[in-house]
Structure formats: C-alpha cells, structure tokens
C-alpha cells in the first residue's frame, strides 16, 4: 500500500510541475507578443522613410531629430502604459514633425539654389 501511494503522489507532483511549466511558458509567450498600435506604426514608418532620404537628413537634421524624440516618447508610453489615447496623440505629433522636416528641407533647397544663382 505504501509504495503505491508514493507512486501516486510522485505522479501528481510531476503533473503539477508539468502544468506549472506549461503555464509559465504560455504566459511568457503572451507577454513577449508585441501588441501593435496602427498610429504608432504609421509614425514609425513615416520617420524611417524620411531618415532614408539623405538630402532630407542633410538639410533638416534638427527637425528630423525632433520627430525622432517625439516618436521615442510615443514608443516609451506604449511599452510602459499601453495608453492608446496618449500614444495616438504622440504618434500624430511625430508624423507632423516629419512633415515639418520635409518643409524645412524644401526651403533649404530653394535657398541653396538662390545662393548658387547669386554667385553665377
């Protein structure tokens, strides 16, 4: 009788540990899965696209840097709080900052052309 009950308790313990490990892995996988935010993704894409434009970086580096800082703030809020309203707001600001950088680059381009024409 005694060996039988020891075997029972051993199998119960193994079932318990198996379930615990399975649950832990399941929960960790759940935490690791990144939940997407469309507004944040749009802002990220807009910034990345602008960053790849060498002329834009050369002519409006500071304006683009401001866009990056706002985007990073949005990323931080999303990771820490998942505050959808605030993240969408910051993503909107980041997108507008990319647009500002594009306008600054256009102005610099025109000014450069004016300078070239002035020295002709």
């Amino acid at each position, binding site marked *: 009788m005694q060996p039988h009950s020891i075997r029972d308790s051993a199998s119960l313990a193994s079932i318990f540990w198996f379930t615990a490990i399975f649950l832990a892995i399941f929960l960790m996988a759940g935490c690791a899965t990144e939940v997407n935010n469309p507004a944040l993704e749009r802002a990220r894409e807009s910034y990345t696209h602008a960053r790849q434009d060498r002329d834009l970086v050369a002519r409006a580096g500071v304006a683009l840097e401001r866009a990056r800082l706002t985007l990073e703030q949005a990323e931080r809020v999303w990771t820490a709080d998942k505050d959808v309203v605030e993240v969408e707001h910051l993503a909107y600001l980041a997108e507008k900052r990319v647009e500002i950088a594009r306008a600054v680059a256009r102005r610099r381009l*025109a000014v450069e052309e004016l300078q070239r024409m002035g020295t002709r």
Partner: protein
Amino acid sequence: MRFQAISLLLGAFALTGIGCSTAQPPTRILSDAELNLRAASEARADDLAPMDLQGAREKLVASRKAMQENKYEDARRLAENAQVEAELATAKAEAEIARRTADIVRHRLDPQRSDNERPSTSQPAPTANKE
C-alpha cells in the same frame, strides 16, 4: 480600531485616485501654441498654408474650451496639436516663399530656359499649400 484602519485605507485609495485624475492646467503650452500661431500668420501662412493654419486655430479654440471645462488632459493634447500644426504652417509658408523667390530669380536670369523648364509658370500659381 478595525474601522479606523479600513477608513484610512479607503482614504488612501481615494487620494491616489484623485492624484491620477488631476492634471495641471496647460497654460504654458497654450501660450506657446498662441505664439506659434502668431508666427505662422507673420510667415504668410494664411495665404501659403491655409489648411494647416486653420487646423491649428481650430485646435487652439478647442483647447481653450477644454480648459474652461477643467478637462486639462484634453486641453494639453489640443494645445500641443495646435502648436505643431502652426509650426508646420510656418515651415510650409517659408518653403513656398523660398521656392517662389528662386523661381523669379531663375526666370530673370534665363527667361527662355526657365519657361522651357517650367511651362506652367505662365499660369497663376495656386495660393494654397499643395501637400
């Protein structure tokens, strides 16, 4: 004693709740947004980036309204939107002024080449921003 402990706990929870929901009035952000709007007007954004400027003005009005209703978080977000949209209007207006100036100078230096390059310059240029 038990009652006192429960009251103390409830009080602490209530205070935490108030702390979370109360935001400061965003007066500085609002005045920054007003300044940005004035700068946009001075940069001729009314003519050259009217849509962005109009958007910024609407956000500023909405922000003031939210302030009056003590909705400070909404007021802050709206003021920040107004600020960035006014900044965008200024940047677009300045870019457009520079582009038009470059067009004029190019045309004066070499009218024939300029006409060939930009056949549409004989038509009146649109006043609204194109982006």
